[in-house]
């Protein structure tokens, strides 16, 4: 829906950037809608950060154009662009306290002292960071610095907020917390977010749309569901989640049911534990190995991972697949004794997808 909007917040056409002989960005076209949470996802070296830095104005494109709100800003300096950036390691001014850091943009633009104090405090409240006005960045925790960086950018009320792996330096717990918060801040402020990350889960969780980049090109742009369920290229299929190749098609690990139900069996089936020993197929409906497609194989590896168990299965066809089973009924680690067991796996045809298998990233997708 966003791509058809007439005036996008960010419009990028045939953007290229070469560093010496390295082509970091090799022809990128993007339309990012107003108020959209847009992620650029890719491995390091995919050019996502370079694209972001060109939107901010820190790098000059080798060729191509960048428009912000319909205005061509390609040759404008950062201080003339209506965007603000949250930097990867926050880039807070170490010699200024929290309040002065947040005020900085307003002060530079000549906002009177009383007003900028007021707005800076409001911005700090909006990121839930009260009462630390006088602290220096060195006296803050990672999460607090993150919030100051966010407030410092948001207080200027930019049309577009650029975020360069802003959660990368936080530990998992805090990262998940900040993800939720980022999303709610974005929704409240109605600002366009352009979010760079290498973490596919983060991109899928937060974004309205995701662009997957590899080697300076966009492989696919779409909603998280589109990118995950219908990857356009082999690279996307491999980078966003895991994809199993079964014959000519691909299936996601969690879509594969494994013919092992270690505990208590499946629902109504009676007569002893329903776990299937070697040589027997799980045939319980609603349970193991269901689906209208089947294959047989041997369990090569079983990894117990808390909420789920990961099976690595060598199929008779020679393909090796990974299947992820939620530990709904498994109450212990006894799943691991299925290593070497012969199993039947099942999946539904509707969950199959296929990508051009002619090698990753041959054609720019957009």
């Amino acid at each position: 829906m966003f791509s058809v909007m007439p005036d996008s917040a960010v419009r990028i056409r045939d953007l290229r950037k070469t560093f010496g002989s390295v082509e970091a960005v090799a022809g990128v076209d993007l339309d990012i809608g107003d108020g959209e949470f847009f992620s650029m996802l890719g491995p390091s070296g995919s050019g996502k950060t370079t694209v972001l830095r060109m939107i901010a104005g820190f790098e000059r494109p080798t060729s191509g154009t960048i428009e912000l709100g319909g205005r061509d800003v390609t040759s404008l300096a950062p201080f003339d662009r209506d965007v603000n950036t949250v930097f990867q390691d926050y880039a807070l001014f170490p010699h200024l306290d929290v309040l002065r850091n947040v005020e900085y943009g307003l002060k530079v633009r000549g906002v009177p002292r009383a007003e900028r104090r007021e707005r800076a405090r409001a911005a700090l409240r909006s990121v839930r960071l009260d009462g630390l006005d006088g602290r220096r960045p060195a006296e803050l925790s990672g999460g607090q610095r993150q919030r100051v960086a966010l407030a410092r950018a948001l207080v200027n009320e930019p049309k577009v907020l650029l975020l360069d792996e802003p959660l990368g330096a936080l530990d998992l717990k805090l990262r998940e917390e900040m993800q939720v918060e980022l999303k709610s801040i974005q929704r409240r402020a109605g600002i366009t977010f352009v979010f760079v990350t290498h973490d596919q889960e983060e991109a899928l969780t937060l974004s309205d749309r995701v662009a997957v980049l590899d080697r300076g090109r966009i492989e696919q742009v779409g909603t998280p569901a589109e990118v995950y369920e219908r990857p356009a290229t082999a690279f996307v299929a491999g980078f966003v989640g895991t994809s199993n190749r079964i014959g000519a098609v691909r299936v996601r690990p969690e879509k594969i049911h494994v013919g092992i139900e270690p505990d208590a069996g499946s629902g109504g089936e009676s007569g002893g534990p329903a776990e299937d020993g070697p040589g027997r197929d799980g045939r319980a409906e609603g349970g193991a190995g269901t689906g209208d497609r089947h294959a047989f194989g041997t369990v090569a590896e079983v990894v117990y991972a808390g909420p789920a168990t990961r099976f690595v299965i060598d199929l008779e066809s020679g393909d090796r697949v990974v299947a992820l089973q939620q530990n709904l009924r498994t109450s212990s680690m006894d799943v691991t004794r299925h290593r070497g067991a012969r199993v039947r796996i099942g999946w539904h045809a509707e969950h199959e997808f296929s990508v051009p298998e002619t090698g990753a990233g041959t054609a720019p997708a957009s």
Partner: protein
Amino acid sequence: MTAVAGRPAPGLRRRAAALLHRRPLLRLSLLLSAPLAWLVVAYLGALGAIFLTAFWTTDTFTGEIVREFTAVNFQTLWDEPVYRTIALRSLGVAVAVTAIDMAIGLPMAFYMAKVARPRHRPMLVSAILAPLWAAYLVKAYAWRVMLAEGGPVDQALEPFGLSGPGYGLTATVLVLSYLWLPYMILPVYAGLERLPGALLDASGDLGARPLRTFRTVVLPLVYPSLVAGSIFTFSLSLGDYITVKIVGGRSQLIGNVVYDNVGAANNLPFAAAVATVPVVVMLGYLAAARRTGALREL
């Protein structure tokens, strides 16, 4: 060392090492006693001797040093207008040299640390250090040639209808600025290199133009390094007497007064009293610098 296999009785070295391992204080005193002795005896001792000598006098008739405590040397220093003039002139030269080196050194250091490509940086640092490999005297005399009447400087300025400064105080400031410039650039370069480039990006991103960024981000963060560099340029200028002899014409600085009193006038106590002036000035300067945190940059 011998093999451990047979576990023979531990050797002397091994036992000494074990003893040192158990006694950190002993370890520390062994490590530091030699340099500390040097510092106290040779370094502070010499300084103390100068200060003590300053309170003695010279018998004008015999030239012998009279070891009687008196403040007469300091009295002379204070009362004679010529010494006050020389002291102020020396201070002025040191301030001018420091200011010039800051003005030249800061942009150069900025270029080296933030603009030049990282792989060119070691080369640039070497280029800054290169003049230090040449002898001080050679460089000073080279400037004497350059500044001579009708010399290269005059010739270069001639098309613009100007002439070189000739020998004098201006030439002294010029040459001292040249000589001490590396001592300003290096600490400032080190300070700027530690300044994350993202801070400059962030400032621009928040709407600040380059000059504003320089004033509100670069300058405050590099300030301690500037002060550190200025300690070098200031103190080296304050104590110099050779450059002014070579290119200074008839100008005199504190160093010349000290030198003349040690040599020609054979009045060591008065020379010592004069020499305490730059020491006192530097102590004041260091105390001020300490407040900026600059001493951590040295």
